[in-house]
C-alpha cells in the first residue's frame, strides 16, 4: 500500500485521529505492506507476520486483507486497491469505501471531493475524498498534532529535556530541515554570520546527506548532547536520530522556520502556524508545478501585505527549483519570520476550525450510515 515514510505516517495519523475523535467507539484496523517503515514512525519494531495492537489500533500485514472479515467502512489511501476477493467476500458487509487521495489545492481536486464512483457493487458505495485547504475540500489532519504552545520557551525546554538534550539549546533559533533537495550553503553562511545563534535540525536521509556534504567541507565537526553536529559561527547543524511521529510533530511546532516536503510535514507546518517553505514531491517535466502554484494561490488571501505574499510566493517557487522564483533570499526570509508567523498562525487557527480532515471524514460517514447521503 505504501512505500514512503510520508504515506505510512499519514495512514498511521489517520488511524490515530479516527480512534481519538470517535471516542474509541470504532474499531480501527490498518493494513499496510511496509511494516518496517510504520514501525519506525511509531517507534516500535514490527514483524512482517504478526498481528499487533498499538495505541488501540490493530496493525496487520497487507497480505492478510484477502482473508479478513470485511469492515463497514473501508478507507483506501494513495490509490491502493483492496484485493478483489476482499470486496467480493465483503460485499454484504462493506457499506462505504472512501478513496482518500493526496493533498492538492488544485480546482479539479476540490471539485472531485465527495463525488461518487458508481462502480460500487450491491449495497456498497464509493466516494472520493480530496484533502486540501479549501473549506469545500477534505481538509488536512490536525487533531493529532500538538496545539500551539501558550509558552513556546517552556514547551521547547520541555521537549529538549524529553529528548535528553541540553535545555539551554532553547535560546537558539530553531530551523527544521526536511527537504528533498536544497542548496543549503547560502542559508548556512547567512546563519553563521547572524547575530542570533541558530540550530538547524537535519532530518531525513536526503537532507542529512546534503547537509553532511556541505557541512563536512565548511564547518567544524562536533557533538551536541551526544548527537553528531557541525558548527560554524552562530550556526550549529544537528543530525539527530530518526524521530517517531509525535516527537517530530512536537519539534515542528517549536521551530522558528521549517523547510518541509511532501504532504504530512507540510500539513504539520501549516497547523503549527510557524513560518515554513514547502517542497512538493518533484516530478519530471515539472508536473508538480500546478500543485505548487495552486497551493500558493490558496494562501494568497491570508497575507497582511502584498510584500509578504510576494516573499512567500517567490521563496516557495525558488525552493521548488522553478526559475521564475529567482534566488532564495534567506536574509529577507529570516528578517520577516515574525511577520510570516503572524499571518500563518491566524491561518492555522482557521484550518483547525474549518478544515479538519478526520472530522470531515467522520461527519460524512455518520451522515452516510444515517442514510442522509442520497
Amino acid at each position, binding site marked *: 500500500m505504501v512505500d514512503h515514510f510520508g504515506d505510512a505516517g499519514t495512514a498511521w495519523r489517520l488511524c490515530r485521529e479516527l480512534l481519538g475523535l470517535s471516542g474509541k467507539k470504532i474499531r480501527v484496523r490498518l493494513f499496510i505492506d511496509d511494516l518496517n517503515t510504520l514501525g519506525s514512525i511509531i517507534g516500535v519494531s514490527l514483524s512482517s507476520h504478526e498481528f499487533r495492537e498499538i495505541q488501540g489500533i490493530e496493525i496487520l500485514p497487507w497480505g492478510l486483507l484477502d482473508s479478513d472479515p470485511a469492515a463497514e467502512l473501508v478507507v483506501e489511501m494513495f490509490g491502493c486497491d483492496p484485493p478483489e476477493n476482499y470486496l467480493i467476500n465483503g460485499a454484504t458487509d462493506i457499506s462505504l469505501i472512501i478513496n482518500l487521495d493526496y493533498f492538492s489545492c488544485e480546482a479539479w481536486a476540490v471539485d472531485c471531493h465527495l463525488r461518487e464512483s458508481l462502480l460500487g457493487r450491491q449495497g456498497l458505495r464509493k466516494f472520493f475524498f480530496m484533502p486540501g485547504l479549501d473549506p469545500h475540500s477534505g481538509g488536512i489532519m490536525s487533531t493529532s498534532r500538538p496545539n500551539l504552545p501558550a509558552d513556546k520557551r517552556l514547551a521547547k525546554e520541555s521537549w529538549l529535556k524529553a529528548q535528553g538534550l541540553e535545555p539551554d539549546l532553547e535560546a537558539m533559533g530553531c530551523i527544521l530541515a526536511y527537504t528533498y533537495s536544497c542548496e543549503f550553503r547560502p542559508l548556512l553562511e547567512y546563519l553563521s554570520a547572524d547575530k542570533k545563534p541558530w540550530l538547524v535540525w537535519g532530518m531525513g536521509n536526503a537532507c542529512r546527506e546534503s547537509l553532511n556534504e556541505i557541512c563536512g567541507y565548511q564547518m567544524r565537526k562536533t557533538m551536541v548532547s551526544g548527537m553528531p553536529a557541525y558548527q560554524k559561527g552562530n550556526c550549529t547543524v544537528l543530525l539527530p536520530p530518526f524521530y517517531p511521529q509525535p516527537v517530530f510533530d512536537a519539534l515542528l511546532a517549536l521551530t522558528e522556520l521549517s523547510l518541509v516536503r511532501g504532504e504530512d510535514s507540510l500539513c504539520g507546518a501549516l497547523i503549527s502556524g510557524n513560518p515554513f517553505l514547502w517542497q512538493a514531491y518533484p516530478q519530471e517535466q515539472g508536473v*508538480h508545478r500546478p500543485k505548487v502554484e495552486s497551493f500558493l494561490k490558496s494562501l494568497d488571501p491570508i497575507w497582511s501585505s502584498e510584500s509578504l505574499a510576494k516573499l512567500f510566493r517567490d521563496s516557495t517557487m525558488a525552493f521548488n527549483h522553478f526559475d521564475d522564483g529567482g534566488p532564495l533570499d534567506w536574509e529577507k526570509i529570516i528578517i520577516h519570520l515574525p511577520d510570516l508567523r503572524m499571518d500563518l498562525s491566524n491561518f492555522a487557527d482557521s484550518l483547525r476550525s474549518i478544515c479538519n480532515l478526520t472530522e470531515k471524514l467522520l461527519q460524512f460517514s455518520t451522515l452516510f450510515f444515517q442514510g442522509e447521503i442520497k
Partner: protein
Amino acid sequence: MKEAQELRSGNFVKIGNDLHLIMNAVYNKGGRNAAVMKMKMKNLTNGSVSETVYKANDKFNQVSLDKKEMQFLYEQDGAYTFMDQETFDQIELTKDDLGDATNYLKEQMVINVSTYEDRPVGVELPIAVELEITYTEPGNKGDSSGRVLKPATLETGYELGVPLFCETGEIIRVDTRNGEYMERVR
C-alpha cells in the same frame, strides 16, 4: 472492457443492470495524485444524472448501441432536431442527452445517433470536427510554435485556447475527446 480514461462524451457503459450515457468526461492528474476521470453520466434506466469520479484505470463495460446516420438540422429552446438520412423522419434530443457534444454540433452536420429500445438517447462524435473561429484577438504571425494559446470562440459558441497565429474566420480542427485545438485547416 475499457478504462475510464478511454471513455468520452457520447459513450455508453453498463454499470450493474443500468445503461449510462457519458455526457462529459474530463481527465485530471496533478502531482502525486492518482489520475482521475470526472464524468457526468445519465442513467438511461431511471433518467437520473450524476456527477461522478473514477480512477483513470477503473474498468467499465462499454456498450455499443444501434446507430442511425442523421443530419443535425437546428436547435430551438434547448431541443436539438436531427433528420434520419434514409426515412427523413425527424427526432429531438435535449441538451442533457447531448452533453458536451453541443460544443461541436453545427447545422447540416451528419452524425451517428445512438438508440436504446428504439428511442434516440445520444450521439457518437467523430474524434475530430472542423469548426470556424468566429472571434479571437488579432493574431501574431511571427509566433508559429503554437505553444502559447489565446482564447477563441467557435461557430457553435464553444470557447477554447488556440495558438497566437490563428485568426477570426479560419477553420480549425478540434479534438472532441478533450475539447482542445488540434490544427489549423485553412
